């Protein structure tokens, strides 16, 4: 594949995934880490210089940051930083109360809770005997709430399947991930310069295109019907279905379909121009989709080849409903 084609494919799938991510959660709208290495560094320094203060720092923010850290070293260091945070709560919180009074370093953080601790320190120096028990009680309440939310996040982290962003994949993708072995085979095929991958467990077969009958009144992505083993195969014009926005007359004329990739045991098949190869990949080599909604047929992106991997069951469901690639299954 030429560099320009590589770039085009990379851009295309990046666009698809970016679109999905931008649709959804609040956390998704804050991909700050990759653009803010300074903050990461300061966080590391802070953590190493005063480890007892870690739980009081902005735990939710760091979780979100980890989700979008692209650099492996950063992710690793952040994971190391998060490990003790997730482990020890109670004792550290007590320590925090004490150190909050003793160490003004805590003021580095801008979080309200730390500000409270700062206030405590200020008040404690003036009237330690009267105010301290009340403030301690308040702090215990606030930290216990924080502990609850932290525990929720910990539970989520335990359940999370291996996605690059660390987020929970939607149920439909999760079911696909469950059905696949840790290492599984995929078939790569090409359509109009775009490479797509289909897990072999979801591959119904490959048929050479011979005589496709066009049927009136069908969507433009419906290529036609081809006889196959005493039944009719519904052939999808893959190019028209996957990238309708780019599909014009010029592209339609340039596409030269040669094979039909059959989807599981359905009567649907994707027309393709060429079959690339079949390789074994690891689950971790796929950037699995993390959000439900748009494009359920796109299970993720194979990182090395930078090509989309199909969720065949979702694809069949969409095709049976006569829906396009931009639709979601509700």
């Amino acid at each position, binding site marked *: 594949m030429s560099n320009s084609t590589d770039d085009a494919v990379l851009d295309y799938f990046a666009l698809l995934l970016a679109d999905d991510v931008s649709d959804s959660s609040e956390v998704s709208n804050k991909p700050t880490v990759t653009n803010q290495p300074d903050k990461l560094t300061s966080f590391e320094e802070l953590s190493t210089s005063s480890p007892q203060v870690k739980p009081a720092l902005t735990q939710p923010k760091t979780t979100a940051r980890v989700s979008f850290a692209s650099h492996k070293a950063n992710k690793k260091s952040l994971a190391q930083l998060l490990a003790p945070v997730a482990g020890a709560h109670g004792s550290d919180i007590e320590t925090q109360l004490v150190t909050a009074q003793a160490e003004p370093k805590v003021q580095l953080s801008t979080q309200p809770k730390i500000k409270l601790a700062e206030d405590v320190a200020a008040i404690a120096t003036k009237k330690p005997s009267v105010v301290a028990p009340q403030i301690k009680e308040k702090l215990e309440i606030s930290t216990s709430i924080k502990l609850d939310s932290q525990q929720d996040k910990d539970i989520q982290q335990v359940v999370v399947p291996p996605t690059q962003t660390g987020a929970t994949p939607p149920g439909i993708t999760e079911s696909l991930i469950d059905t696949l072995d840790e290492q599984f085979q995929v078939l790569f095929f090409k359509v109009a310069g775009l490479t797509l991958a289909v897990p072999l467990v979801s591959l119904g077969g490959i048929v050479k295109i*011979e*005589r496709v*009958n*066009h*049927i*009136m*009144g*069908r*969507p433009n992505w*419906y290529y036609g*019907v081809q*006889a196959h083993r*005493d*039944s*009719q195969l*519904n052939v999808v014009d893959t190019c028209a279905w996957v990238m309708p926005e780019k599909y014009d007359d010029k592209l339609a004329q340039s596409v030269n379909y040669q094979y039909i990739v059959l989807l599981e045991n359905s*009567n649907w098949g994707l027309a393709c121009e060429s079959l690339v190869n079949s390789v074994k990949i690891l689950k971790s080599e796929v950037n699995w989709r993390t959000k439900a909604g748009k494009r359920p047929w796109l299970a993720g992106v194979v990182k090395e080849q930078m090509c989309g991997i199909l969720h065949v069951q979702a694809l069949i469901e969409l*095709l*049976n409903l*006569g829906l396009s690639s931009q639709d979601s299954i509700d």
Partner: protein
Amino acid sequence: MADVRNVAAVAASKDDEVLQWVTFRLDNETYGINVMQVQEVLRYTEIAPVPGAPHYVLGIINLRGNVVTVIDTRSRFGLASSDVDDSTRIVIIEAEKQVIGILVDSVAEVVYLRASDIDNAPNVGTEESAKFIQGVSNRDNELLILVDLDKLLSDEEWMELTQL
């Protein structure tokens, strides 16, 4: 025991009715229409356009003193128009108690099909023309698309034809 088998075979054959279909070609696809609805097949003759006629009407022909409306089948099926040639035919049919002509690229043959050989057409279309298809059948590795002539036009359009 043999009698029981014969009765079962007769019952099965009654269920599996054999129908005859006239096949014609349009844009490299083969279509079939029920032979009982076909009155005759004509060579192409001059079709007189009718001012103000609906877009799906090509015009009218004089068939032994009777005026017959000819439908633009290609347009109806969502296909691009093509030039008339030696194999172009006008098939005179009866549907919805009206006699009309349909212009086709060529007429092929009459085929016999068992009801069990007819499959449902893939149901993925929402366009109007999708409802014309009564079923599909695979013959000699080629798909025969069976057309329901009664649904070729909507009720309003059939009414409109009577007022031409």
